[in-house]
């Protein structure tokens, strides 16, 4: 029979652990709320940009009337020889299967594109650590996409590959506070490489986040742009019912809202869509050229924001079930302890009774 003191000690330690997981859950819930707000406030800009681009598509003659070829390099479809895959994970763990699931989806995507050259760009420490162990680094790492590669030698070296699958860059520690400037620096670098035909297409793997109960893991094609305003989703994994239920319970107990992040306001979605003949200060084609890179930036920005929100939601859910498990464990340990105590008392009584009988 286990020692009562030992059991009591274990219960105390589990109670402590439960306190920590509970606190982490509340912290994640608060962070989630903030992340959700940020994602929400990025919405109007993205929506307006999309609307203007859409209306420009109709007017700017972006396709060559004779050949049907698009005039803008970002719309050009090329044969996929080299692919850039951006994998967005979190910087920290303890978020359930969040990071593992993203990396699994990434691996599945890599399988589906087997035989092609793939450059991998890791965002988030967890993803970087995993990918660095598996794939060799490119001869020259971009490290920070913001740095302009000005030297000729760098560009030369960038064309030599370490292997078919290689890691070309990593971004760690930017997820704490996602800024548009970072997303747009990334987009610039991606666009530069795309225009120089170093890469023929760009995909992002991330956890899309609409609300706590509406999330999915997707691989989205960012370049070439196929249809403005339409997501080009290549692989998607919805939440299972069980996951949804768990996430919902966690959100309710932590007081985080279930509100969705994509309710674009009516007035905003009207931007640039009025049925009037606008005066264009610049020729539409020029405007279009200036806007398209911003479209890529905003898509990357959105991926980062949603991934951050999803990470916090995942951590909140994981910590909620950890707290529940701790509670269950305390209950069962208490039961064992009571049993042990009773057994001890019973034993003592028997000893006394048999002692008395022997006299």
């Amino acid at each position: 029979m286990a020692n009562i003191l030992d059991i009591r000690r274990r219960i105390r330690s589990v109670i402590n652990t439960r306190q920590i997981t509970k606190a982490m859950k509340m912290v994640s819930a608060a962070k989630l709320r903030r992340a959700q707000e940020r994602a929400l406030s990025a919405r109007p800009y993205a929506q307006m940009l999309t609307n203007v681009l859409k209306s420009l598509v109709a007017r700017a003659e972006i396709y060559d009337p004779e050949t049907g070829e698009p005039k803008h390099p970002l719309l050009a479809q090329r044969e996929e020889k080299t692919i850039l895959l951006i994998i967005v994970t979190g910087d920290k763990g303890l978020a359930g299967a969040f990071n593992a699931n993203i990396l699994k989806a990434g691996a599945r995507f890599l399988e589906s594109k087997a035989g092609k050259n793939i450059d991998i760009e890791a965002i988030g420490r967890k993803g970087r650590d995993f990918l660095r162990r598996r794939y060799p680094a490119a001869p020259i790492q971009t490290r920070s996409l913001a740095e302009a590669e000005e030297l000729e030698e760098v560009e030369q070296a960038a064309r030599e590959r370490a292997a078919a699958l290689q890691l070309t860059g990593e971004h760690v520690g930017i997820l704490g506070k996602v800024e548009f400037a970072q997303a747009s620096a990334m987009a610039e670098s991606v666009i530069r490489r795309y225009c120089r035909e170093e890469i023929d297409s760009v995909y992002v793997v991330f956890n899309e986040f609409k609300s706590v109960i509406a999330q999915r893991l997707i691989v989205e094609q960012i370049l070439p742009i196929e249809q403005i305003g339409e997501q080009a989703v290549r692989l998607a994994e919805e939440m299972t019912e069980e996951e949804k239920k768990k996430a919902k319970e966690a959100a309710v107990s932590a007081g985080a809202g279930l509100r969705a992040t994509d309710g674009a306001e009516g007035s905003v979605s009207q931007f640039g869509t009025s049925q009037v003949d606008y005066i264009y200060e610049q020729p539409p084609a020029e405007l279009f050229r200036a806007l398209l890179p911003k479209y890529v930036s905003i898509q990357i920005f959105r991926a980062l924001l949603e991934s951050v929100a999803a990470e916090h939601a995942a951590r909140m859910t994981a910590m909620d079930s950890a707290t529940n498990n701790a509670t269950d464990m305390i209950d069962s340990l208490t039961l064992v302890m009571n049993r042990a105590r009773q057994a001890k008392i019973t034993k003592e009584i028997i000893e006394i009774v048999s002692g008395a009988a022997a006299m």
Partner: protein
Amino acid sequence: MADTFQLEIVTPEKKVVETAAEEVQIPGKNGYLGILPGHAPLITELSVGEITFRENSTEQKLAVAWGFAEILPNKVTILAETAERPSEIDVDRARKAKERAEQRLTNGDTSVDVNRALDALHRAQVRLDVASGK
């Protein structure tokens, strides 16, 4: 004819301004534009500069960097990459950015991307101007 129009200034991070304004001046790519209520529909790209708008007869300024604007008779919507009120501007940072850009332009190094440095200089200058209330 109404004497105000609705003005919205939006950045990727948040909605900066949402108000009824009497007049707004925006830094169009081909020069500043003054907009009054009832303006003809227009779409323009913005450059780096300051937006001045009048609301209840008081003038307010914002520093903006790149964006575009849609103008309708009763509504002006401005999408800017950054839009900062004078109180939000980090003067120290802008001053340092200005010094850095000036240094780049004057040290005679040919590897410097002159356009980029000029842009940076311009942005820093606009921020400083707006912050000092000029």
